[in-house]
C-alpha cells in the first residue's frame, strides 16, 4: 500500500466516525476546564471588577507580572496542580487509546459511546503495560542515546571558533532527538495497533509484530508519520495566521477567537486520529 493511499484511507475512516472525535474533544475540553478553574478564580478576582479587565491583552506583561507576583505563594501549588492534572490525563489517555484504536480498526462498527468505552476497558491493561515499556524506550532514547550524541558533539562545540558551529550542532542534536523520538513513538503506535488488530495479549509480542512490520517497510511507515506531522505543522501555521486577524479586542473578535481556538483543538485531535487510522490502514494492508 502506498503512503498517500494509507493517509487518504485514514482520513476517510476518521470522517466516517465523527462521534469518536466528539468524545475525545469533550473529554479534553471538560478536563481542561476543570484544570483551568483555579486560574479562573484568580483572573476573576483580579480583573472581574477592574477596568483593567476591559483592555488587558492576553500577554499583557504589566498585568501578568503583577498577577504572578501577587500570587507567587500559590503559584507553585497551581503549577503542581496543572502537572498533576497532566499526569492524570496521561493515564486517562492510555485508557482512551483502547477506544480510539479499537473503534478505528473496526471498519464496520460505529463509534458509539458504549462501544468506545468497551474498547477502552478491553485494552486498558495491555496499553498500560505497553506504555510502561514505551517509557523505557523513551528514557533510553533521550537519556542514553542523546547523551552519546552530546558527548560526540561536545569536543566540536568546545573548540568552535564562531557561534555558528555550536548553533548548528545544537539544532542538529535537537533534530536527531526529534527524529529518534518519532521512530520510538511510531513503533509504539504500531505495537498498539498490533495489540488490537492481532488480538495480541503479550505486549512484547505486539512490539515484535510492530518491529517486524516496520523492518520491511520502515521508510514508508516513517514517511506516513512525518507527512502527518507536516499536516499538523501546516494546520498550526494557518491557525495562528487566522487567529492574528482577531487580534483586536471586541466582543465579536473575542467570540470568533474562542471558536477558532476550539476548532484548532478539534483539528489536532482529528490529526491524531488520522495518525492512528492511517497507520492502521497501512498495517492492515500488510498482515503480519
Amino acid at each position, binding site marked *: 500500500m502506498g503512503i498517500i493511499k494509507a493517509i487518504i484511507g485514514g482520513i476517510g475512516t476518521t470522517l466516517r466516525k465523527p462521534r469518536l472525535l466528539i468524545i475525545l474533544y469533550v473529554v479534553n475540553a471538560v478536563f481542561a476546564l476543570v484544570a*483551568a478553574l483555579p486560574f479562573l478564580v484568580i*483572573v476573576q478576582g483580579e480583573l*472581574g471588577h*477592574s477596568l483593567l479587565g476591559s483592555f*488587558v491583552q492576553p500577554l499583557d506583561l504589566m498585568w501578568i507580572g503583577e498577577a504572578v507576583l501577587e500570587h507567587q505563594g500559590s503559584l507553585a501549588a497551581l503549577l503542581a496542580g496543572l502537572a498533576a492534572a497532566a499526569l492524570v490525563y496521561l493515564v486517562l489517555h492510555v485508557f482512551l487509546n483502547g477506544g480510539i484504536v479499537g473503534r478505528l480498526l473496526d471498519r464496520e462498527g460505529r463509534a458509539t459511546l458504549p462501544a468506545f468505552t468497551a474498547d477502552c476497558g478491553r485494552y486498558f491493561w495491555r496499553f498500560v503495560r505497553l506504555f510502561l515499556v514505551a517509557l523505557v524506550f523513551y528514557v533510553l532514547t533521550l537519556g542514553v542515546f542523546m547523551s552519546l550524541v552530546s558527548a560526540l558533539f561536545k569536543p566540536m562545540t568546545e573548540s568552535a*571558533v564562531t557561534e555558528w558551529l555550536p548553533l548548528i550542532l545544537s539544532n542538529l542534536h535537537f533534530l536527531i532527538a526529534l527524529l529518534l523520538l518519532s521512530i520510538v513513538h511510531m513503533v509504539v503506535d504500531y505495537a498498539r495497533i498490533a495489540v488490537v488488530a492481532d488480538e495480541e495479549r503479550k505486549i512484547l509480542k505486539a512490539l515484535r509484530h510492530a518491529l517486524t512490520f516496520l523492518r520491511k517497510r520502515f521508510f514508508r511507515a516513517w514517511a506516513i508519520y512525518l507527512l502527518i506531522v507536516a499536516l499538523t505543522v501546516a494546520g498550526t501555521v494557518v491557525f495562528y495566521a487566522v487567529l492574528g486577524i482577531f487580534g483586536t479586542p471586541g466582543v465579536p473578535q*473575542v467570540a470568533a477567537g474562542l471558536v477558532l*481556538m476550539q476548532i*484548532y483543538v478539534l483539528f489536532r485531535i482529528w490529526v491524531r486520529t488520522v495518525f492512528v487510522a492511517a497507520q492502521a490502514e497501512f498495517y492492515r494492508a500488510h498482515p503480519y
Partner: protein
Amino acid sequence: MKNRIIGACLMLGAALVLLPVPATPGQTAASPSAGAPGLRYEIWVELDAAGKMLLGKEEIVWTNPTKDAVPDMLLHLYWNAFKNEDSAFLREARAETLFSRGDSPEDGEWGWVDVTDIRLADGSDLKPSLAFVTPDGPETEGDQTVARVLFPAPVQPGESVHLRIEFRSKVPRTVARSGYYRNSFFIGQWFPKPGVYEEGKGWNCHAYHQNSEFFADFADFVVHITVPRGFVVGSSGKPSETRVDESSGTTTTTYRQAMVHDFAWMADPRYLKVEQEFVADREVTPKEYEDTAALLGLPVDEVRLPNVKMILLIAPEHKGQSERHFRALRAAIKYYGLWYGPYPYETVTMVDPPFRTGSGGMEYPTLFTAGTSVLASRNVLSPEGVIVHEFGHGYWYGLAASNEFEAAWLDEGFNTYSTGQVLAVAYGAGSLGFSFKGWPIDWFLRIPKTFDFETNRVAAIATVEFDPVTAWSWKFYNGGSYGANVYMRAATLLSTLERLLGEPAWPRIMRTYHMRYRFRHPTKADFIGVVNEIAGKDMTWFFDELLDATRAFDYGVAGLSSIKVPRHLRGVYDTDGTRVEWTDKKIEESETLYRTTVVLRRYGEACIGGDARIKVLVRFKDGTTETRTWDGQARWTRLELIKPVEAESVQIDPEGVWLIDENLANNSRGVDGTRRNVVKLMSQLLFTIQCLLHFVGSWS
C-alpha cells in the same frame, strides 16, 4: 496696601520657586581638552597571545587634591579576583543563589596580576611595603584585589607622587568582563589602578565583588599596546602612532585619551574594523535643536552636538549587522547628547564582543562592548538595546562618574531609564527576545511588543521587599535583587518621578544634574539637590520613601457603590414658611439621586508625601466625570458624591503617573464588573491547557 505688597511678593516668590528653573548652562568645570588635574597614566603593555599573559610597565603621577597628608596609596588589582576561590568575587559567586556572574575558572585557566616592581621616580623601592588589604572587612580575608603601598613620606596637599610599576598578568579564561578564548582577548580592569582618595575619609578602594562594578578618578592616559602582528586592536582613546617591529613580529599602537577613569582594549586576529562618522548636522535637524533648547531653557548653541568618529570592531560572522550597530550608536549619540549634554570625546569604539570572552554588554570610557547573534531578529531591539545602554554608560558612569560600588543605581538605574527613553523615540516598542535553539521565536510567532518601562516595572515591583535601591552593590540579597533594584526599580522610580514632575522640569533636572556633575563623582544627595532646585519643591520624601526604604507602593480602590437615595426623607418639613409633607409617592416622583461611595486604600506601606496627591476619577453613566484628590496619608479614605446619575467606574491615577504602583488591577473598579477580557484571557488559558493535555496524551 502693605498686605497687598506682601501678598504680591509672596505670590511672586512662590511663582519663582514653583516655576521650572532652566537647565543650568555651562557648568562643566573640566573638559577632555583641559586634561585631568590630578592623575596621569602612561602604560606599556605587551600581549603574549600564546602564553595568555600581559607584560606591563606603568607610570602613575598622582597629585594630592585634598588638604590631607596622604601616607599611602591603595591600588586595585582586579584580576586577582580570578586567582583563587578565596577571592571576594569567587566566594560571592559560590554563595550566589540566583544569578552568578562568573563561575570559578577551570584548572589552568585562572587569572591574576602580579606587581613585580613598584618604586618612586627617584628609584625608592616601595615593593617591601606592598601588602594586600581587605577594606571591605575581614570576611574577605583572602582577597587580593586591593593592595596598599606606603610612601616614604606622606604626600602633602597639592604635592605629586610619581610611581613606576611593573606588572605581569595572566589573562583569565572567559570570566566576568575579561578574558580570552582561543586567540580572542578582551582586556578590561587589567592594570594596577589607584582608588579614589576622599578628603577626610581616605582611599575609597573596594575589593572586586561579584555584584559590583568600578570607581576611579579621572585621568589622562597614554597607553602603548603591543600585540602579535595581524591582530586587530580596539581600544579606549584615540590611536596616535603605530610601530611595526619586524624582528619580534609585533605591532605597537599608542592610544591617548584625556579625562577618562578607565582604559580597556581588545585584540583578535579575525576582527574587522569599520569606521563611520557621526555628523551632527545630518543627524539633528535645526528644529530638533530649537525644540531641545526651548525645553531645556538653554541657548541653541549650547545644545549643538559635535561630530564623533564611530569605530566598530566586529566579528566577520556579524558583518552584515554593521549598519544595525551604527544606526543604534547614532541614535544614542544624538539623544544622550541632546538631552544630557554633548558627547565630549572625539571617538567612540564599539566592540562586538569576541566569541566566548564573556565580555559582552560592558562599558568603558570611550569604548563599550555590544553583543549580537548570527540569527538576530529585526523586531527584537538587540543588539540595539545593548548598544544604546552601553554607550549611555559613557554618560552615567563615564562622565557623571558615580561610585558603582556604593551607589550602583546612580549609573545603572539612570542608564536603564535613559536607554528606554532613547529606544522608545528611535525605534518604538520592541519584541521580547525569546529564542529557541538560537532561533528567534518571533520569526514563527507574533510576540507582543513592549517598551522598556513596562518590562522594568515588572522587575521593579518584584524586588521591593528584598533591598533598598541604594544598598551597596555586594550587600544585596542576591544577584537578582541587585539587578532588579539598581537597574529596573531605579529606572522605574525615575520614570515615576518624570511623570510626577513633568516637562519642562524633568528634562532640565536631568540635563543640569549631568552637566553639573560631568567629570565629577556625584552622589544621591547631589541628585536630590538638583531635583529640589529645579522642581522648586522638596522631593526628598520621594527618595526616602521609595529608594532608601523597602516599602511597597500600592494605592487601590477597595470599593465602589452607587445607590439610589431619596431626595427627601418622609415626613413634614417647614420650608420658606410653608409646611410640606413628603410622601412616598411624592418622593418617588421627584428627581432621583445616587449616592456614590468610593473607598480608597493604601495597601502598601509606602506613602506619598509633599504636595503629591492621588488623583481619583469617577465616571458616571451619562458620560460626565468628577475628579477628586487624596493625600494618601491614611490607610484608607471614603469619598461620597451625590449626583442625579449613577456612577459607572472609578479610577485612581488615571494618567498613570505612579508607575511604581505595584498593582494596577486594583487601581480601578467598575460598578457592573468588566468581564469581556476575563472571558478572553480564560479562553486563551483554556486553549493552552487543552493543547498541553493533547500533547501529553499523544505520548500515552
